[in-house]
């Protein structure tokens, strides 16, 4: 349970310092089971800030979305920092971006929140369907307390949590400037149970499953936009010359896009699950991400987003890397 007063005070103090352009956090949503991102440009904006299990977004995307317009003569670039409110998984995204030198450590103020698990919007909407007015969800030990029209219901956490939270190893932010409340010890262990079960299937079954999934994709690229680690200035699928992936929506192009998206996150994905959350067609994208996370751990003993000093996985090598597949 996070003390919201403490969070608001911390945000207010950060904005008051004047070297911060804005702090991005969460505020109460206006519809159903939703919280929304909130920006504090002025100290009084901090009062809106909340933190509840509905705060599912990964706000680490916002420092990467900063526009750097061309400067007029004599104009100084805006060198102010950006403040971000992060959960455990979000902080790993920031660590990973810093590791890749996509972001300067001095350019972000990280307000860390030890997180005890959030809800999965899809699961909670299925459990309480047709909820239009905004509601309240609170954290209470191993249960979520859901308040709808003054009526409270207690639901076991396992029932509403997304899969990523069930196996979260880093609930406390790894990198932070200000920590709200006490550290939470990670007691869960990632065992890649689902990945291992899927690996046992035959090639034919695997392709049948994925073909069905990729057929659904409408290539809206929401997965790319929500991902804190997809921050290329120009994505390879937007390139026209050479045009690697065509615009038509069919199994061939969809497969190419989904495979390349997964590959580009190999050794970088920190498992925040935003791609899967925002997917309008419900593709199980985390299954691909988790598989690569597991293999990278096994092959190269590397975990993304833990150490900002390390070199990125695919930009380094060891002379004794596995090569049994080489003729």
């Amino acid at each position, binding site marked *: 349970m996070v003390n919201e007063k403490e969070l608001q005070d911390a945000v207010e103090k950060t904005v008051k310092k004047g070297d911060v352009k804005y702090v991005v956090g969460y505020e109460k949503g206006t519809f159903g089971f939703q919280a929304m991102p909130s920006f504090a440009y002025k100290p009084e904006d901090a009062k809106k800030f909340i933190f509840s299990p509905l705060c599912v977004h990964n706000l680490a995307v916002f420092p990467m979305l900063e526009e750097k317009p061309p400067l007029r003569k004599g104009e100084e670039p805006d060198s102010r920092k950006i403040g971000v409110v992060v959960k455990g998984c979000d902080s790993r995204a920031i660590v990973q971006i810093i590791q890749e030198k996509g972001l300067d450590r001095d350019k972000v103020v990280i307000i860390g929140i030890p997180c005890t698990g959030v809800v999965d919007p899809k699961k909670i909407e299925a459990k309480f369907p047709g909820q239009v007015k905004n509601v309240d969800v609170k954290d209470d030990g191993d249960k979520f307390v859901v308040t709808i029209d003054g009526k409270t219901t207690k639901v076991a956490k396992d029932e509403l949590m997304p899969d990523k939270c069930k196996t979260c190893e880093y609930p406390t932010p790894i990198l932070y400037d200000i920590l709200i409340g006490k550290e939470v010890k990670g007691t869960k262990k990632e065992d890649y149970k689902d990945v291992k079960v899927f690996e046992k299937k035959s090639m034919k079954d695997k392709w049948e*499953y994925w*073909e069905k999934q990729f057929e659904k994709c409408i290539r809206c690229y929401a997965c790319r936009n929500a991902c804190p680690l997809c921050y290329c200035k120009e994505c390879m699928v937007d390139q026209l010359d050479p045009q*690697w992936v065509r615009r038509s929506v069919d199994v061939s192009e969809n*497969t*190419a896009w989904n495979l390349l998206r997964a590959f580009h996150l190999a050794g970088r994905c920190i498992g925040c699950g935003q791609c899967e959350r925002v997917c309008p067609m419900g593709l199980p994208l985390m299954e691909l991400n988790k598989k*690569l996370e597991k293999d990278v751990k096994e092959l190269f003993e590397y975990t993304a987003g833990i150490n900002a000093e390390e070199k990125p996985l695919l930009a380094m090598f060891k002379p004794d*890397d596995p090569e049994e597949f080489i003729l």
Partner: protein
Amino acid sequence: MKEKFEPNIIGFLCNWCSYAGADLAGTSRIQYPPNLKVIRVMCSGRVNPIFVINALQQGADGVLIGGCHPGDCHYERGNYLARRRMAVLKKLLEHTGIDPNRVRMTWVSAAEGNKFAEVVKEVTEDIKKLGPMQHFKRENKW
């Protein structure tokens, strides 16, 4: 009569070793299957996984990537980086149900004309067994 399946294999060969190895195989008159279509790249580290997936989309049944032996890379580390990339790509293909044997990698030096011919033979045989690539071949040709 049904035509025998002849696979289309794209070979990305590095300029300094594998391409010279293929050249040596040719000048030494060593026979090897004609299924390999060679594209010369400056280094195996130049091979982006996008090339591999694009080749499979455009009708290749297999892809062979040739580089220098570890430690012999003209650019010192290109082949090591390629090795990591392909290891990950093969795992990804396997998980989505595309046989990872369609993407092969080999180290051939400029002096190994014989090895080059052997490798091409082996890869062609393997891909003949796997049959044509039908998973995500591009259907619209325009």
